[in-house]
């Protein structure tokens, strides 16, 4: 139980760390690498570096708003 939780925590940390590293590399280092270098095969075009996080952020925000809205509606109904 305790050990399994630790494993999950470690997994979550390593996932976020690798995403961070990958994204940093993509955005900060890649523009300085020659465009015919093989490493470009492992990354999407630069435009997506903005598009993906923006859409992920919007999705997250709307999910949170919907959740909060639903809970508030429910509690209002309970009071009435």
């Amino acid at each position, binding site marked *: 139980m305790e050990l399994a*939780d630790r494993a999950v925590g470690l997994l979550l940390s390593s996932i976020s760390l690798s995403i961070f590293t990958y994204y940093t590399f993509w955005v900060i280092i890649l523009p300085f690498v020659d465009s015919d270098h093989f490493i470009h095969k492992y990354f999407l075009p630069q435009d997506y570096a903005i598009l993906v996080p923006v859409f992920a952020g919007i999705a997250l925000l709307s999910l949170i708003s919907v959740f*909060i809205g639903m*809970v508030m509606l*429910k*509690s209002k109904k309970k009071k009435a």
Partner: protein
Amino acid sequence: MADEMETKGEKKYKYSIIIPTYNERLNIAIIVYLIFKHLRDVDFEIIVVDDGSPDGTQEIVKQLQQLYGEDRILLRARAKKLGLGTAYIHGLKHATGDFVVIMDADLSHHPKYLPSFIKKQLETNASIVTGTRYVKGGGVHGWNLMRKLTSRGANVLAQTLLWPGVSDLTGSFRLYKKSALEDVISSCVSKGYVFQMEMIVRATRKGYHIEEVPITFVDRVFGTSKLGGSEIVEYLKGLVYLLLTT
């Protein structure tokens, strides 16, 4: 015991332990027994603020009073359920100690940590010593993964928004200098467990010296504590309120 505190040659302070209760007849006797077991050389009183529990908590406390003495256990009952914040204020009015300890009656706060609170206060002369789950030596027991993640997430969010200077905002196992508690509590308006958060944030903003000791939080043995959507939303509202007013 190794962590029993040494008070030889020092001025002896008196500690008032305020325990708000509501339907805690199973727990209150155990907690009183444990407090007496772990605080042998300390001058203290236990103030039970009972909100008119229908399960006979007050009868149990009266029996305990006969056993330990009415000067050690004080029963300060209120007629009906009036909430946690006012329970502290009510208990505080009757406190005669130099320091006030606030703890839950449901055994999630184990009295074995009391000596380390007292010791920390004596060492550092802090105004507030707060128990924290988020340092080495502290933790939670009996929580599932979801609960742990929610708690962590809530804490990270609060840390980012409020910069409170303490690692555990919602834990309510704390020792206060009496004057500090009186000052802080008078400026708090929230209810529920946002109240715990507001107290420590306001104390930080007022510049009180706050120290931390690690504690292990044990999930309540009898009864259940709930954590659902509406609790999360209440918590978020509390965060926003504190962000805007402190």
